[in-house]
């Protein structure tokens, strides 16, 4: 069935495949196994079939966390992408101080998430937070993230966008920089408006990069945890709980590793569902390109 050449190929790629099996497939299989067991510190794991999944799917907080995750992730990904695209386009022109502006924009990526969240938490503290006092003076209302879950989820989204914008910005800026100027000039000579140049030329060139950025951000954002846990631990009344904090509670507060594994797999499934759409788009595009 296999000729010598194929055996040689398999042999040559076997080190990397072994690594992949050890580092990715192995732990994944263990997580699946764990999700079918009752497991905690100081006790032998007991096989319980799908009980962890039954408990998970019958827990209203899990569904609330899933809904919150879905909403927040979509807000984060699309708002961040739109903002990054606008900034990347602006940065693609020449202006004085461009280097400084670029540095400022990517600076949040160098700030640790813990510091970033603590900083925002105090800036928006209801009694003494500078931003909230400014909002109170100029708008007549505060961002009441402690009491109001919609405000809480909004702040979580803003925080996440602020922290991760540089990632998307760098990808899109790099892609926009590669769009041939002569093509744009040719379009303009043909009478295309700036909007048409953007839509018909720039977007076509950067579409693969946009898809890659979206896919990665969807996957990373689905694992949203630090912003929520450090800000309000999913409160008040667990109304801003997301899947990341739900999993954290199961593993590190309740030491219920079977439930945590089941939650982890549910999160993976959600990320996979979203990513598969974009992966399919990328695949189709690659096929049509070539």
């Amino acid at each position, binding site marked *: 069935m296999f000729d010598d050449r194929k055996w040689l190929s398999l042999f040559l790629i076997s080190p990397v495949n072994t690594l992949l099996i050890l580092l990715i497939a192995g732990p994944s299989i263990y997580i699946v196994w764990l999700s079918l067991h009752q497991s905690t*510190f*100081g*006790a032998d794991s007991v096989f319980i079939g799908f009980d962890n999944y039954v408990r998970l799917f019958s827990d209203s907080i899990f569904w609330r966390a899933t809904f919150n995750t879905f909403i927040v992730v979509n807000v984060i990904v699309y708002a961040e992408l739109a903002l990054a695209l606008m900034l990347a386009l602006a940065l693609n022109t020449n202006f004085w101080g461009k280097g400084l502006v670029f540095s400022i924009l990517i600076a949040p990526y160098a700030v640790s998430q813990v510091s970033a969240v603590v900083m925002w938490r105090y800036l928006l503290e209801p*009694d*003494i937070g500078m931003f909230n006092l400014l909002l109170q003076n100029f708008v007549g209302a505060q961002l009441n993230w*402690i009491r109001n879950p919609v405000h809480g989820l909004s702040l979580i989204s803003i925080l996440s966008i602020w922290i991760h914008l540089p990632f998307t910005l760098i990808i899109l800026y790099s892609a926009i920089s590669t769009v041939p100027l002569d093509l744009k000039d040719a379009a303009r000579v043909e009478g295309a408006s700036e909007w048409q140049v953007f839509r018909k030329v720039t977007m076509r060139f950067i579409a693969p990069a946009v898809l890659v950025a979206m896919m990665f951000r969807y996957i990373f954002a689905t694992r949203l945890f630090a912003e929520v846990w450090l800000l309000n*631990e999913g409160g*008040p*009344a667990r109304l801003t709980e997301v899947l990341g904090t739900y999993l954290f509670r199961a593993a590190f507060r*309740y030491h219920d590793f079977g439930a945590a594994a089941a939650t982890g797999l549910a999160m993976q499934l959600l990320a996979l569902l979203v990513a598969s759409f974009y992966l399919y788009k990328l695949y189709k595009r690659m096929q049509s390109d070539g």
Partner: protein
Amino acid sequence: MREKSRNIFSALAKVVTVGALVVSMATIGNAQELTIIGHKVHERVSTGKAGGDFAGEWAAAKNTKINWLTFNVQAVHERLFREASLGSTTIDVGFAANRYYKPQFPEMFQALDDYLASAPIKDFDELPKGMLGALTYGGKLYGIPFRHATAALHVNTAILKEKGVAVPKTFEELLSAARKLTFTRSNGTKVHGLLLDYRSPAILTDFARAMNNGDFLTPDFELKANSPDMIGAVEEVVKLFKEGVLPEAFLNFKTEDVITYMQQERAAMAISPFGRYRNFNDAKKSKAAGKIISIAVPKSEKLEGFNVAPIRTEFWAMLIPKNSDNKDLAWDYIRNSVSPENTIRAAVNGNGPIRPSAYADQRVKDLVPYASDEQAALSVARPPLPGFTNSARVEDIFIEEVESALLGLKTTREALDSVQARSLPLLPSK
């Protein structure tokens, strides 16, 4: 040239080899190591200046290097339990708080009865029986109590004087004073009358205890979440929150927030462990340094049989992971740390002493201004709830429901009925 280089490399190689041998021989002859995992406060009270570094003295006498691994409360337990569940561990002594005790301890930790028989702890009988009982599984002892954290009422006397309010002597006076001490300064700064550490059952049970010696969960696992005592306690907390006596941020409070509010004089009183006296009066960090006194939480005038409120006390014990390679050394460290003399020295460093006799020592009387109040509180205090496997789950349910009541999404009764119904299946069978 090549010959010269070779000679240089050869000489270098010899120097490196001899150096490595010397270093490894020195290491072999050098100090053994003992790794302790706990909260920063455990390290501070064992190595402090005021009472002296008794951990360091022990380490020097035993030619041992102590490695302290300190984390926040939740992380201490997660790491300790994880290490104790592995095939082997580098952790030799771990601190664990009473609410984290669970039936799996015999699988993770070393029973200490044999150690206690062969190398006894001096005046062991003085250690509180209740604490030892909580650390006993199947008739065997798995930990030695080291520290108690008993709740106190911390009062900023300057704010009370400013508003002409006397230090409260009953719980009713406390609530009334808290309302009078809630105001906004001329510069716009809000001052809140009272702070509570958190929204957990352990904290809110303080109100039920002070008002009517109530309980959320008894030591024999009788759940009283929707008892009249708990409903009364939570209703009072909800009222205080709605009136602004408790700050809006109470919905998101962590220990650090209580310390910050008191240090910035944004709150007049707080119910928090006695040990916080040092944080609140820290001259380097606190605007309120020297103004805050710590007293026993007063009881309701209707509550009979007590001089002060039978408030919560929580305690930490030292345990030895079953898989530690240094069990003998770990035991020696433990028995040294809880000796009568070192209990006093730790108390002077800010520890809550688990030996009642420590309060009679002149050093404690001189250097711990709240010692007599702490002793009075401790004499009637008891743990807020027993440890069990699902304690964290029950705590989260309580917090979620109480927050619903604070937000007005549920009445207090509805919230506590829900706590009762959701928590009952999570309790161990009696």
